[in-house]
């Protein structure tokens, strides 16, 4: 049983920079929790506080039922994988992996057994006698992970472990990490700035910005029901389209208006949007919620636009255009033939429209 509980965690640096603001998280046993956000959002600082590498300004961190605020890193029963791998350059792969066990005075044969086991899991048995400088990036990454798993810690901490790898390898290691987590069933906290990594790896994902937690939830929950405009724009690629619209109430029907764009507010949102009638809101729609209009689409969800740029990606086509005074992207079926500067009629899926408060950005 290793839950990690973070209560009202704050970090103030000496130069008065407030890096982590009142973060509270409940990480369940065996859960793979991903902290994601742009650089400087406090995700790494939070992780380092869990590791004991950064002092806690205020708040509490518990592993299981034990408060670990004042424990040195060695007594927290955690293992960490660093972005630059931090392999000990003067030690062989075997010694790198054995170091943590040696420090804890494990008997020699137990160390040997565990290192061989981990090496086998990671497919690095043949590298055990090499020095880190003789390894490729992916191999170093495996050794760094191996060094963490030999210790059988209660919690794994990952600090952007894949960001030094090239794109192909990153995708491959991502899958391996996920498989490894399923096999080991150890609670893990994973920090990344890459939302794709966050979505693919995380059982749950914490989105952070400027030291604040924006939203905590399962990947699809974040995607489908973003709590605010930041989360909506951060999760998903290409990013969600945003248009500033004016809300008007015409004989009980709510309309969202922007230059050259007039859409009926979908019924399921009407209740909540009604309070904002006569004011301005931000309308959000994901690229895949837009498609070329067919006769079946109700007219109040359609609009005409001139295509600006077409990006044929093979499995899909991205079309860039302007609507309501904002640049937008639609992701459509590659079978549809579209050319730049052509006028096209697009429909949006009324079920998949989001409204955000113009000032606070909170979802409505």
């Amino acid at each position: 049983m290793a839950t990690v509980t973070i209560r009202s965690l704050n970090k103030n640096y000496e130069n008065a920079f407030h890096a982590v603001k009142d973060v509270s998280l409940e990480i369940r046993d065996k859960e793979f929790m991903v902290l994601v956000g742009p650089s400087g959002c406090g995700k790494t600082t939070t992780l380092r506080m869990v590791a004991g590498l950064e002092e806690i300004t205020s708040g509490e961190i518990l592993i299981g039922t034990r408060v670990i605020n004042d424990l040195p890193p060695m007594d927290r029963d955690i293992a960490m994988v660093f972005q630059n791998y931090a392999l000990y350059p003067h030690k062989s792969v075997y010694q790198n992996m054995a170091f943590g066990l040696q420090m804890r005075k494990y008997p020699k044969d137990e160390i040997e057994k565990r290192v061989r086991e981990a090496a086998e899991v990671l497919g690095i048995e043949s590298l055990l006698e090499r020095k880190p400088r003789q390894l490729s990036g992916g191999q170093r990454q495996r050794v760094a992970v191996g060094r963490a798993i030999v210790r059988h810690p209660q919690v794994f901490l990952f600090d952007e472990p894949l960001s030094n790898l090239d794109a192909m390898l990153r995708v491959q290691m991502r899958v391996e990490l996920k498989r490894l987590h399923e096999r080991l069933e150890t609670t893990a906290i994973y920090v990344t700035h890459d939302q794709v990594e966050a979505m693919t790896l995380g059982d749950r994902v914490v989105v952070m910005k400027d030291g604040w937690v924006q939203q905590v939830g399962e990947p699809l929950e974040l995607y489908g029901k973003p709590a605010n405009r930041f989360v909506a724009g951060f999760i998903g690629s290409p990013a969600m389209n945003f248009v500033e619209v004016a809300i008007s109430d015409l004989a009980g029907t709510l309309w969202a208006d922007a230059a050259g764009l007039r859409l009926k507010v979908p019924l399921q949102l009407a209740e909540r949007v009604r309070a904002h009638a006569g004011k301005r809101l931000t309308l959000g729609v994901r690229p895949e919620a837009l498609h070329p209009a067919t006769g079946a689409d109700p007219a109040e969800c359609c609009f005409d636009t001139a295509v600006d740029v077409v990006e044929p990606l093979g499995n899909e086509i991205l079309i860039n255009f302007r609507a309501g005074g904002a640049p937008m992207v639609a992701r459509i079926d590659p079978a549809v033939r579209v050319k730049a500067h052509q006028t096209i009629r697009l429909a949006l899926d009324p079920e998949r429209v989001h409204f955000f408060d113009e000032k606070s950005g909170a979802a409505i």
Partner: protein
Amino acid sequence: MLIERKWKKWFTFYLPMAAFILFTLFPFYWMAVTALRPDHELYRTWRQASATPFWTLDPTLEHFKGLLATTAFPHWLWNTMLIAIVSTIISLICGMFAGYALARLKFRGSEFLGTAIFITYLVPQTLLFIPLADIIRDMHLGNTPWALMLTYPTFLIPFCTWLLMGYFKTIPKELEECARIDGATRFGAMVRIIFPVAVPGILSAGIFAFTLSWNEFIYALIFMSSAELKTVPVGVVSELIRGDIFFWGQLMAGALLGSIPVALVYSFFVEYYVTGLTGSVKG
């Protein structure tokens, strides 16, 4: 095009390089030739018809023999070696800990301390020897090897500290963070991970310290008075120049023998030495 490039390389690389090598090595050559030259060649005028200033026709080892037999040169060599090694070890140990602390630990005044240590290195020995002489006398250390073993670190420690501080800063701090998570204390991580990784830096600091104390002159001249206890640089100069007579052959033989250990130390560790100064650790 190709020819032009070749010429370019000659002018921009080989020629300056040759000039540089000639310039640096000539004094050594001169030293060697003079040490091997018999006295009748040494003390003749330049205008003499048989003069061969750049080589000798009649090499001899008599100066070396004379040096070893009539002077305390073996003693000087031993003294210099002992003093240089002990003061290097003292300075390295202090420099490693101080350098680590200044590079890694954030404490009040750490930056000021770093600068202060550097400034002490800048105070010229020619000023420092006066108060130091007073201290040496008060502690009754004058004319013992300890006088030098303890005063050399006054300029070696700041030097080692600075060089090592710079080197420690190039080592990613994740290395020791990882070690601390792996179960090492801060001290343990320093000794087991950082110091072994810093070996090139430590060696180059050691070589520098060794050379500086090997060549040191002023303190050795002032704190040591009996002929037996002198170091090579002082011994050679004070015992082989008598009044206005220069025993050139023995002087050069002494200088040559005195520079061999340093040259050996350098050539053994030259690779470490270079990486130590350029500072590169790849994780």
